[in-house]
């Protein structure tokens, strides 16, 4: 069984920026710019769009094309909306006992401290589109098109909406 966990790209990218902006983020040993921490938010987002987006896109396309095993697509947006329902869906698919999880892990109800410890996307849905500027969103859109992502997936990758 292949479970594919996805999320819209703007939210994921901004979350990635969040993660690597944490003081304890594991950047050592990787060829990140030494001055990455000094980049402003726009420049950081540019960096991850240019150097990480293509990687996300290639994985996404590989999952679309893979048809060897049964595959189930799961959306991070559903997880944020109702993570108990999200896990109920998974356990139902796998035929295993129900897993009780905490209430929604959205930033609305959990402290930043707790959220940073559980290392989840701290933003609410649509945060990426609010933080990225029009040029960056257009660039992501162009990359999705150039990568040849099938049309039916494009709006989801850009907005999180299906």
């Amino acid at each position: 069984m292949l479970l594919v966990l996805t999320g819209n790209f703007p939210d994921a990218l901004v979350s990635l920026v969040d993660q690597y902006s944490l003081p304890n983020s594991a950047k050592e040993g990787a060829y990140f710019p030494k001055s990455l921490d000094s980049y402003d938010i726009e420049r950081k987002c540019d960096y991850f769009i240019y150097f990480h987006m293509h990687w996300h896109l290639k994985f996404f396309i590989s999952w679309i094309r893979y048809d060897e095993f049964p595959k189930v697509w799961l959306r991070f947006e559903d997880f944020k909306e109702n993570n108990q329902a999200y896990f109920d869906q998974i356990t139902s698919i796998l035929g295993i006992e129900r897993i009780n999880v905490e209430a929604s892990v959205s930033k609305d109800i959990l402290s930043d401290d707790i959220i940073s410890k559980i290392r989840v996307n701290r933003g609410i849905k649509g945060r990426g589109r609010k933080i990225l500027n029009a040029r960056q969103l257009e660039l992501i859109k162009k990359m999705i098109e150039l990568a040849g992502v099938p049309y039916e997936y494009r709006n989801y990758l850009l907005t999180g909406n299906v």
Partner: protein
Amino acid sequence: MIQKFNNKLTSGILLASQPQSASTYTVDKLSQRENIRIENIARDLDPYGVVEQDLDVKKLEVALALNNNSSFVAK
């Protein structure tokens, strides 16, 4: 969840995860079930820092061998 790998029948859940998609949380929760183990089969981080989700086939083979006839979730 009987799947075929290298012409052998084995059990497993492969979690293919986009970065920042709550995969760590999901795996941790799934592993709370007594009969589900976690096997990390991703390649070690390379200097470019862009292969966290890339699979290491050797790690997968080890995971399959260690978990023969038992369930595991591979991330």
